Each structure stands twice: as structure tokens, then as C-alpha cells.
């Protein structure tokens, strides 16, 4: 078992600055072989956790993006129909049983993310993104897969997992997940990072962002989050803004209040929020940034 300091360090090397609790969660994932369910506001870096985890384990990341109406043929496997039709035409006149046997063989099977994830030799990271958007039926099916890690394909038979993947699920809370799925998973609530951690994230991700500028940006963003906004900026927005400021050659926020205000569009994504943070507001916020 790798302890959580090692994990936090490995995450930091891969560019993800984790808090201590997330490192614990990841060490638990390995120990208990349970999936990890991440919840939190949009843009706090839930998906990034999975990416960082893949680079920590030096393994492949397989991603399944959920949406309403997602079914097994898009998530698990599908037959290659065009190829099957061609093959049937080519073998016209052959014994029908042989033809059937042939077109339902491995060669004609298209792997979708879930099947791919259990057939790798080295356990990959399986990211099931925004599970709350999928239907209840799919959730139930997923629950079964996550407990057995085997899939049965009527034409081929049962396929057992060669390696148990590291499973990360994310949810934005648009729909309540079933209690069964929640119980099956470890739970971690991802919150907006505090100023210190956000500054470190900026420094790790944006080339050319100095320590003082990163801290200023993080403080400014913290102030903006406390304003009554409809859409609170997430970490991704902070990074966009930091990249914009660095790109415009801003070294200190106080030197360029104009640029600061004009680039706030990186953070504020609705017209209402944009008009709420007027020049006066942005200057007041800037004044509080040391």
C-alpha cells in the first residue's frame, strides 16, 4: 500500500494539487477495491482527478461520458454491422450455421468503453463522467458491472475482467443517484480549493505564472466567488483567466486594473453576472487583494 503522502506527491508531479483527504480516498480505492464517487459543483476539477490518477498509475484512461438515453450498445459493446453484412454477402451459399458462427465472433465485435476497461492487461482508470445524466436503468446495469466485473454477451458468452480497473464516477447532482450505487462507492465531495491550494494549482498548470501573481489571482477569484453570482467560476475558469493574464504580460494585478476588468470574461459566463461585476466592483475586489 502506498501511503497518502506518496500519493499526494505523485499527484502533484502529474500536475494535480490534491488536498490530504483526496489522497486518502485514492489510497482507500486501492485497498478496498471500491469505485470512487466524486461530487461537487461544475468546474472544481472532478474529471481532472481521474486524469491525474491515470498518470499516477501510468496507465490508460478510458472515459465514458454519460447522457440521457445512453444504452448498452454505446457503453458496452456493439457488433460491426457493416462488416457483418459484407461477410454475409461474401459467403453467400455457405452453410448458414457457419456464417452465423463467423459473424458473431470476436473479429466483428466493437469494444465500447466499459468492455474495453475490463479487457486490458494492465488495470486502466475508468472514468464514468456525469453519471447523474444517465437513466436509472443504466445506473442499475452499471451497479451490476461494478460488483462482478464481468459481462455476458449472448452470442459470445461471458467475458470476465482480466484486471479490475480503477473506477472513478463523477456527478453534478442534477439527479439523485440511487442509494445502492452510493453505498457501493467511496464518496468524496470536491469543494472549491482554498486560496493557497488554488495558487499552487495555477503555478503548476500555467507556465510563467509567478508565485505572487498566482496568489493575487487566487485571492481575486476567492473574492469573486463570494459575490452573488449565478454561475460561480470553477478552477478551470481560474486557469483560463491566469493564462490570459500571463499571455497579456501582466506581472502584478495592481499595475493593470483595466486589463483585469476586461479579462474577467474568462470567469463570468452569464450576462447577468457580467453586469453585476461592474468596474467599481472589480476595483473594490482588487483593492482587497494584497
Amino acid at each position: 500500500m502506498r501511503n497518502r503522502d506518496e500519493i499526494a506527491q505523485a499527484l502533484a508531479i502529474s500536475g494535480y494539487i490534491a488536498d490530504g483527504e483526496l489522497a486518502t480516498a485514492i489510497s482507500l480505492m486501492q485497498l478496498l477495491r471500491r469505485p470512487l464517487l466524486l461530487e461537487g459543483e461544475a468546474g472544481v476539477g472532478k474529471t481532472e482527478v481521474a486524469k491525474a490518477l491515470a498518470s499516477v498509475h501510468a496507465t490508460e484512461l478510458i472515459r465514458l461520458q454519460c447522457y440521457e438515453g445512453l444504452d448498452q450498445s454505446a457503453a458496452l459493446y456493439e457488433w460491426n454491422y457493416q462488416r457483418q453484412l459484407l461477410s454475409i454477402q461474401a459467403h453467400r451459399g455457405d452453410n448458414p450455421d457457419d456464417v452465423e458462427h463467423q459473424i458473431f465472433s470476436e473479429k466483428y465485435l466493437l469494444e465500447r468503453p466499459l468492455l474495453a476497461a475490463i479487457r486490458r492487461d494492465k488495470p486502466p482508470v475508468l472514468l464514468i463522467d456525469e453519471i447523474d445524466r444517465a437513466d436509472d436503468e443504466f445506473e442499475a446495469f452499471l451497479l451490476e458491472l461494478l460488483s462482478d466485473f464481468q459481462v455476458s454477451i449472448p452470442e459470445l458468452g461471458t467475458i470476465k475482467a482480466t484486471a479490475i480497473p480503477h473506477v472513478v464516477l463523477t456527478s453534478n447532482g442534477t439527479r439523485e443517484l440511487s442509494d445502492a450505487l452510493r453505498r457501493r462507492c467511496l464518496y468524496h465531495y470536491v469543494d472549491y480549493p482554498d486560496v493557497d491550494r488554488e495558487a499552487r494549482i495555477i503555478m503548476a498548470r500555467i507556465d510563467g505564472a509567478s508565485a505572487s501573481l498566482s496568489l493575487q489571482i487566487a485571492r481575486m477569484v476567492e473574492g469573486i466567488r463570494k459575490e452573488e453570482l449565478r454561475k460561480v467560476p470553477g478552477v478551470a475558469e481560474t486557469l483560463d483567466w491566469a493564462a490570459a493574464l500571463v499571455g497579456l504580460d501582466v506581472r502584478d494585478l495592481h499595475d493593470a486594473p483595466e486589463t483585469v476588468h476586461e479579462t474577467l470574461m474568462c470567469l463570468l459566463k452569464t450576462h447577468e453576472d457580467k453586469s453585476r461585476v461592474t468596474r467599481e466592483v472589480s476595483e473594490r475586489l482588487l483593492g482587497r487583494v494584497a
Partner: protein
Amino acid sequence: MSCCGTSPGYEELDEVSRLVSSRLAAFLKTLRDSGFAVGLAEGQDAAELMTAGYAAKSGLLRSAFKHLFSARKSDWEKFDGIFDAFWLGKRVRSRSITSGSSKAANNPSLKTLADSRRSSGETAMDQAPSTDDAGADRAGEGRMEGASRADNLAEVDFRKLADPAQIEQAHEAAARLARAMRTRLTRRDLARRRGYRLDLRRTIHGNISHGGVPIDLVNRQRRDKPLRLVILLDASGSMSMYTGVFLRFIRGILDEFREAEAFLFHTRLAHVSDAMKEKDAARALDRLSIMAQGAGGGTRIGESLQTFNRWHAARVIHSRTVVMIVSDGYETGDAALLGREMAALGRRCRRIVWLNPMMAWEGYAPVAAGIKAALPHVDLYAPANTLKSLTALEPYLAKL
């Protein structure tokens, strides 16, 4: 559930001393009492964690247990307090604070949303034809089955019905209305869902005998969940004039909708679907009156909703569920609790419809603390004091 301490899973782990495992079992019980969904599997994993060296530091153990036992944000927020109180003997803060919802109320985005909704009043909600609106009335006209018989009653406020025969007629009409709603809702559903896609897998499998030429096409139809109605009926004293007719309405809905559930609440909540489905009306009434002990007294809507969210919601509500609350909103309990529980309910279901029979009364304004706290979370707030106003609901439901 104190049996967990002696379950075989714990005995296998002889590294964990008997004392620790019984303490752990007590902790699991504490968690269950606080609303955590913790099962045997979690208990075994917890024991495994303790042997794996996580018990060395209390901070590490707390963080590990937090991930293992929490299942949602509310659990996540109150876990630390419970852990500290149990293992470290710190005083636990009062339940109303640790529940975490008070923190959510400070969240700026939520607050602005609530404020903007409140200030703009009902305009922020979905629009449904109201009975006062002459134009909207037309939508419901001529579509009520057997309108000729119930016609004269359609616009009479239920509480003004005095004649027993009239009351009986109104009750019958309500039941009939519920049946009619079901028929039309289903029919509309079918017509709309005619769109299909080709199911290639079945098509090819089925046409192998034709040499693979797809002669018999197999179509795939979207299997749609039928709309489910969950009705929460206020049976308190202030609603007594309307309870009778709504009970009949609910009975009709339970009979006709494949998926419907009914609850009755006053100072507490009772699940009445089974009792209402009783074929024999007299027996149904008997069972109901036993359940409705305390009906006609005060109303604790917030607490009843809390019970509903905690014990029934996960089972009863799916993504195509409309929750219909029939109440006047006079809350004798904590209005803030009502607001919080309404928000929790709103996250689970598709729409919340609040029917308020008093709404059509002259001079009525939703100023009572209860209804004020609940309104920001309601999708449709409509009157329901006449048959006509009940009919007006149907087009709204049909659109969902």
C-alpha cells in the same frame, strides 16, 4: 441492528480485538441513527481499514471512514462532527446546525436564485391555466368526460357544496376526472413516441435465413417511463372542507394510473396507497381513519416532508415523477425546515406541483411563513378549489 457486532464477518478478523469491534458496531449504529445508509459490507471494510494501519492517527481514520461511510453531501458535511463526538468525546453540535443545509443557504448562487424567484413571484414558475383566466379556461372546456352531468358543479368551490347529493356528485366527478386524465395522458404519450430507430442487431440476427438481406426490419422503440404521480395530501383541520373531495380524487388516480402513490400528512406522514386501493369503500375508510389519527389537528409540513424524503423518496420517486402537494401551507412547525426539505425534494423529482385550495379565495396572498418558504421550490402553484381548476392541471401534466 446491534447484531452487527456478532456477525461472522467480524470474527474472521481476529486481529481486531473484540473490544474494538463492538465499539465499531456501536459507531455504525450511531451512523445509522443519523441517517447514513451503512450496511454489513461497509462494517467489514471499516474493520479491514483499522487493521491496515489507518487507526494509527485519528485524523487519518476519520478521513478514511468519511469516504467509506458517506454517500451524499449532507453525510459528508456532518460526518466529522459525529466522528469526533463518538471517538474523541467532543460535544456534538445540535442537529439543526450539523444538518448542513443551513450552510447551503449561504451559498450565493442558491440565494440569488431564491431571491430572484421570490421577488418575481409566480412568474418564475411554469405557467398553467388558472381558473380566473378566461382565456386559459378554454383549454379545459369540453374535454371533461361526462361534462353535462357535472357542468353546473364545475365552478362551485368545494366548501360551498352543502347538499349531500351535490357533494356526492362532486366526489364522483373528481374520481371520473382522475380516470379521464389517465386516458388522455396515455394516449398523447403514444402518439408522441411514434418515432423509432432501426435495431440493427435484431434485424441482422433475424434475417440470416434470408442470406443477410434485411427483409424483416426490426425497429426499436424508446421505452419511456410512464409519468408517476406522488400525491401528498394535507389532512389537517384547516383543510377539512377539502379533504373529502381530494380523497376521492386520489382514489381515482390510484385506480387508474399504473404508477401512483399517495400519502396523507398532518402532524405526521402516513403512506395510504394500499389502504386507498381497497376495493370495498367502507373498509378503505376504516383503514384510513386508523391511519389518520390526529388528522384535523395542526400541520407539520416540514417534518412530514422530512419523513418523506428520508424514508420514502428513494423508493417512490424516479426521474419522471411529479410530486403533487395539496395543502394550504399553514405550517405550525418550523418554516425554515419546510424550505430545506422542499429544496431536497425538488432535486429528486421532475416537478413539484402545489395545489392550494385557498388560493382562489378573495384576498388570499401567500404570506404565511410556511408557504413563503416553500414557494421558491415549487414549479407550479395552482388553485384547486373547483372541479374546473383540477381539470386545468391536465394539460400541464400532459406536457411533461
